Structures are given as structure tokens and as C-alpha cells.
């Protein structure tokens, strides 16, 4: 059975950097027609592929990742041929909003299926 772990991200609107980050997340995912969840996971997984530098440079790394991710996601979007007209009124980036669909066929246990089949 697939195990899903969830967490919620909070952006403090008093902090201009965080506000900017939220706006970036919202606008990019909207333009690309993908969820904020997908966008963030891609961002993290791409970060994992980056070589670890001795002196950690957050700004440099973020720029590199974002550029790389954007390129990949744009390709993805072209293939998806989806419109970018998304409606999302949430102010929090809900990492838990959408489950990863990979391996979904394993997400429901036999016991749960058996129960559902009773009805």
C-alpha cells in the first residue's frame, strides 16, 4: 500500500521574501497548468540532483534549480496541451492538496476494497 506523508507550508505575509515566494509558486504553477504540489516536488527532486557544494549558496542553487525546473515543466506542459486557466483561491500552498498519483493502484488495501464491495 502506498504511504502518503503530508505537511503544510506557511508563508508569512509580513515577510516580503516569503510573500514573494508564494506569489512565485502560485503564478508559475498557474502558468504551467500544474498543481503547486507538483511544482514543489519537482523543485525538491531537482535539488536532490544538484551537486553538493562545500559552501552552500542558497541563491545560486535556487536560481539554477528554478531555471532547470521551468524548462522541464514547460516541456511537460506543451505535451499536456492544457490551458493555464487555473482557479485556486487558497492562500496556503497545500502540499497535502493532491496525492502523487504514481502507484495509486496500491493505495487501497484489500480490506478496504472488500468493505467497499459490501455496498
Amino acid at each position, binding site marked *: *500500500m*502506498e*504511504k*502518503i506523508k503530508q505537511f503544510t507550508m506557511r508563508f508569512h505575509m509580513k515577510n516580503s521574501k516569503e510573500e514573494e515566494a508564494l506569489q512565485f509558486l502560485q503564478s508559475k504553477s498557474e502558468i504551467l*497548468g*500544474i*498543481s503547486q504540489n*507538483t511544482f514543489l516536488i519537482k523543485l525538491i527532486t531537482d535539488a536532490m540532483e544538484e551537486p553538493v557544494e562545500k559552501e552552500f549558496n542558497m541563491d545560486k542553487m535556487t536560481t539554477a534549480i528554478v531555471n532547470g525546473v521551468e524548462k522541464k515543466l514547460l516541456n511537460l506542459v506543451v505535451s499536456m496541451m*492544457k*490551458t*493555464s*486557466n*487555473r*482557479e*485556486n483561491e487558497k492562500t496556503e500552498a497545500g502540499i*497535502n*492538496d*493532491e*496525492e502523487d*498519483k504514481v502507484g*495509486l*493502484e496500491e*493505495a*487501497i*488495501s484489500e*480490506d*478496504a*476494497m*472488500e*468493505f*467497499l464491495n*459490501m*455496498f
Partner: protein
Amino acid sequence: MNDYKMNGSEIIGIDHGFGNMKTRNTVFRTGVKTFKDIPTFGIDVLNYEGMYYLIGEGHKPFIAEKIADQDYYILTLAAIAKELKIRGMKSADVILAVGLPIVWVSNQREEFKKYLMQNENVEFLYKDICYRIHIKDVRIYPQGFAAVASNLTGFEGINILADIGNGTMNTLFINDHKPQGDKFYTDKLGVQQCINQIKNRLLSESGSVINESQIEKFLITGKLDIKPEYQQSMREEAEEYVRGIFSKLIEYDYNPDLMKLHVVGGGGCLIKNFGIYDHSRVEIITDICATAKGYEIVAYNSMEREKRLGA
């Protein structure tokens, strides 16, 4: 892939609540007002077969059968439109994944399915956008359980799942990850009962008629900017309602020392704000869209399984 699809069809989970309609990404009031002509006010307008419907307006009283009138059908179309807009679509083949109170599923399933599939091909305008949908199938599941069906790993030992909606409370035992097919109940013990009790109390004590939306605000947040004595009366009624919930659960052999309680649905906030309980043994699932999301997951898995088994 962002959305659940099956053979090119969009799987759309809809939780037809008595208080709110929920989809994966949207929540709106369960209310419809019908007009012959374009309503002057309101932007949430659906135009279907020559009639205009103002979505989210008015309040629908509790009815045991959701198919009694066309309201839930119109609300379903609005829910589909809202979801399709988020998915960037105006036309689609759709598989609806919906639910009914747990003890009514078997009896009402066919009728509800027929009701939602009254027209396989539907064309309507919603907020001036034309939607063309083909409803290919309707899958119906027990309410509440769908919200946790894909995540039963946390249900070690004896657990009670209580789905407290506006109209009903659905209760199910889940022991060591396994839902108990002989221990589930539906009671007309929804949040609306609490709202009615508060309204009656304030009316009898002070002659004041309080707006339901104010009461809802109080129940969700635990506070409201009104006279302290009014607030005290409201609090007492809410606490009484929560005690009633726990009494009902105890009738079903709930023992807080021996088992865990998991609460889904809008009633969770009442437990949180007005209940006395051991926080380490009660989980309140605050995502109001959890059941609608769960319907999609369950429907997708069921269909995948059927495909594998060649059904």
C-alpha cells in the same frame, strides 16, 4: 498527471453535503435559487435548459433523499464546472465519484445514480462559460470512509471513524486497519441540529433571531462579536451538542481509553472547540475536502482493479 483519469475520462469526486458541496478543490454552499430570467444580482449563475440557477443561495433543509428535487442535480453540474475550470477544460467525459450516508448506500445507490445520470450528455452555461460533458458513469461509496480509505495504516488497534456532516453522523469501526462490515451507523445528528438548538435558545431567551452564518462562524472559530451572555448561551448549546455526539458514540461501545477516535467532516471543528477529550486519542481531520478527494482515489482504485481482473 494532476487529476485522476480513467480511459480518457475525468474522475470527479463530489461530496454532496447538506451544508456544503465539496470537490477536490472547491467548496460552496448547498443552496439553489431558481429563476425564469437572468437574475439581476449574483454572478454564480448556471443556465441549464432555459432556466437560471443562482448557486450557493438560500438554504436547503435536511432531506433524507437527495433526489427529492432537482437541486442536487443542478449543484452537481456547478461542481463539475468548477472542477473542470480548475483542470482547464470546458468539455470532458466524466466519471462521477460520490457518496451516500453509510447505511443508506445499498438502498439509495441505484436511484441516486439514475438521478445523476438523468442526461448522459449535458450542455450548460456556468458563469458565462459553456460546458459540454458526457457523464459516463457514477460511482457511489459510503460517506466518511472514503476520506481515510487510502490511509488505513494509522488505524492500529480499535478505531472509530465519525463523519459528522451538516445532516448526519456516519460512524464506522476500523480495527487493525480493517473496516468492520457489521459495525457502522448513520444518525441524524448533524451540525444543523446544533445550529437549530442555538437559534431556538436565543429566540426563547431574548427574542433575538440570529443569522445562521453567524452561528456557523461561532462554531468554526469558537468566538463571535456579540453580547457575552448570548455567546455563553451559544457555547452551552454547542457543548451540549458535542456531549450528545460522544453519548451516541458511547452507545456504540466507544471507550476513549481503549480506542482512538477519528473525526472527519464539518463537525470536527465543534469537537475541537467545544469538546472535552484526550487530544492524544482523538484525531480531527480538518480538510473539509477529504471525502471528495477520497471518492476520487477509491473510484480510481476500484476501476484499476476491475481492469486488472477483466471485469
